């Protein structure tokens, strides 16, 4: 993510050769792998999803798949997916940001920082079946902690882990570490000199945060929040391992539509559901870029 400064000489050479027309600039070549990657992994799948969402398995055009998006159980699943993503992104962003701030306040190469970043790096990727199972055997109905608490007379079972409440708790386990990872660089960019400058101008802590810290950190915070939202929105394996009944969130409904042994021929409904997800993320992106523009105005 570092920007390479272009030396004046290089810029001048490129400009001159373009003017004389002797050499075709080859600088665009560097971006080819990126474009190929984006084309293959982002644009092509998106196009396939959009096209197939409007077709039958035989390729005939139809609106039936998209109509399924209006079914009450699908709308409920979308609502729960958005609720899950928003809540875990919000809680994850706040707790992650606070944790990251505490880490940054310490010495740059201190043991705390090294431990926290290493742990965050591991935990942010510790999702899926392993995470779900770890929760199951510790706080599930027959989990170690549940049974220990029951031994002391406190009944905490009741299947909370296998509902939306459970998903929220489990998702936070990878959302908070992810926030720490993506927010640390932004906090590192905040120079102590700015604080000194505020103080030398007579501003206190409140003034510093009100006029410098928060405006400066808002765009990266919103960006990280959006990343967390998308991360939770698309998360699948953790929920799949935890909840075996009913597609309470959209990724689980897509799974059902694609692999069901009992309800057949729903593959293209899965594409329509995926299209719905693309739309939701698209709206989130648009909102983000709008807020980014507003909050970034201060920086100009």
């Amino acid at each position, binding site marked *: 993510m570092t920007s390479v400064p272009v030396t004046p000489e290089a810029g001048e050479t490129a400009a001159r050769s373009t003017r004389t027309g002797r050499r075709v600039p080859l600088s665009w070549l560097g971006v080819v792998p990126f474009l190929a990657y984006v084309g293959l992994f982002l644009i*092509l799948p998106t196009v396939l999803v959009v096209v197939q969402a409007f077709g039958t398995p035989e390729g005939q055009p139809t609106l039936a798949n998209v109509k399924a998006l209006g079914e009450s159980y699908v709308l409920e699943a979308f609502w729960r997916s958005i609720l899950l993503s928003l809540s875990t992104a919000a809680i994850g962003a706040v707790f992650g940001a606070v944790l990251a701030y505490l880490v940054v306040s310490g010495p740059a190469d201190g043991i705390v920082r090294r431990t926290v970043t290493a742990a965050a790096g591991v935990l942010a990727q510790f999702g899926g079946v392993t995470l779900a199972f770890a929760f*199951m055997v510790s706080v599930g109905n027959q989990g170690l902690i549940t049974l220990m608490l029951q031994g002391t007379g406190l009944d905490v079972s009741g299947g909370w882990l*296998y509902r939306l409440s459970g998903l929220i708790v489990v998702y936070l386990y990878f959302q908070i570490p992810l926030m720490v990872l993506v927010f640390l660089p932004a906090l590192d960019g905040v120079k102590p000199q700015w604080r000194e400058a505020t103080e030398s101008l007579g501003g206190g802590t409140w003034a510093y945060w009100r006029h410098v810290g928060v405006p400066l950190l808002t765009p990266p915070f919103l960006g990280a929040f959006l990343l967390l939202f998308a991360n939770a929105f698309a*998360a*699948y394996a953790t929920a799949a391992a935890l909840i075996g*009944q009913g597609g309470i969130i959209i990724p689980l409904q897509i799974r*059902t539509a694609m*692999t069901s042994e009992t309800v057949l021929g729903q593959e293209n409904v899965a594409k329509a559901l995926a299209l719905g997800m693309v739309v939701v993320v698209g709206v989130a992106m648009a909102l983000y870029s709008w807020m980014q523009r507003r909050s970034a105005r201060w920086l100009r």
Partner: protein
Amino acid sequence: MRGVGASVAVGAIVALAACAPPSDDDSAVGEGGVSASSATSAEEFGGMDALIAAAKEEGELNVIALPDNWANYGEIKAAFTEKYGIKITTDQPDGASQDEINSVKTEKGRSTAPDVLDMGSAVTLANTDLYAAYKVATWDDIPDAQKESTGLWVNDYGGYMSIGYDSSKFNSVTALKDLLGSDFKNSVALNGDPTQAGAAFSGVVAASLGNGGSADDISKGVDFFKELKDSGNFVPVQSSPATIKSGETPVALDWDYNNAAAVSENKNWKTVVPEGAVVGSYYNQAINADAPHPAAARLWQEFLFSDEGQNLFLGGGARPVRMDAMTDAGTIDADLAAKLPEVPGEPVFLTTEQTEAATKYLTENWAKAIG
């Protein structure tokens, strides 16, 4: 693992690769003058020895969605490899039947495509244009109702819906209604979602039969699970060997052969076929019409339907399709047969119409009942 986007992208790449033209039929030609990929019986290919030689020449077999702890497939695969020296590659061991069909379509023409399929009935019947017709040597032993007349698919093994439970935690269970008792709080699980998995689907059908419903009307089964949920006894997690081992699903409704195999996870695990709610179902074998290893695929069928293969299914607690014929001929492993759980009552096998009606009802009502 967590990104749906990633799997969609992978799907796109597989779809791209699938655009490559299928390879020409270069499979071995037997003494009968028929290529392995079009032979409809070993005899037509020039006899078993010719088939074995051609299969050994191919040296490999691709299977899909055959976990080692399902119907004894671990031992079956090992025995086949040992006997013929053919290496078996298992793709997506925990995949569903529909995953098998998806794989046949997306990997068409590639050497990694599945050679043989083992699927539930609904998926089998919906995709018959993808299979090669083949009749094994023991074809006549198989009842007509359990095979497609030209050999496109054939029942291989089956079982009955059963209740598996940890006998160290619960007194003996005999009927589904027992599970409504207060002892079973947070305990009862299905192997999957009935709108998705065949085993869970049959669990609901069994619950219907055990509660005054019928194969034509499964609403009583859905009501039963709603009651189970309202009483706090239902666990919405999918039972698996791991959840049985950890104790998270101390009661699991699943095929009797799966519950029988769970003893290896929990030595107190008992399997009973519930009283008056005996639902049976068979899985089906089929050969991929575009099998990359056509001779090995056919030899695998011959092996599965031989006395040896059928007794291996029995070793996993599954009921092989030739069981009656083998019992008459005295070739069944009597010790293994005696270990099967008792079947209290006349088994019910759903017809295609009943399956369709039940599926429709479940799609509309299951999520509401347990949501």
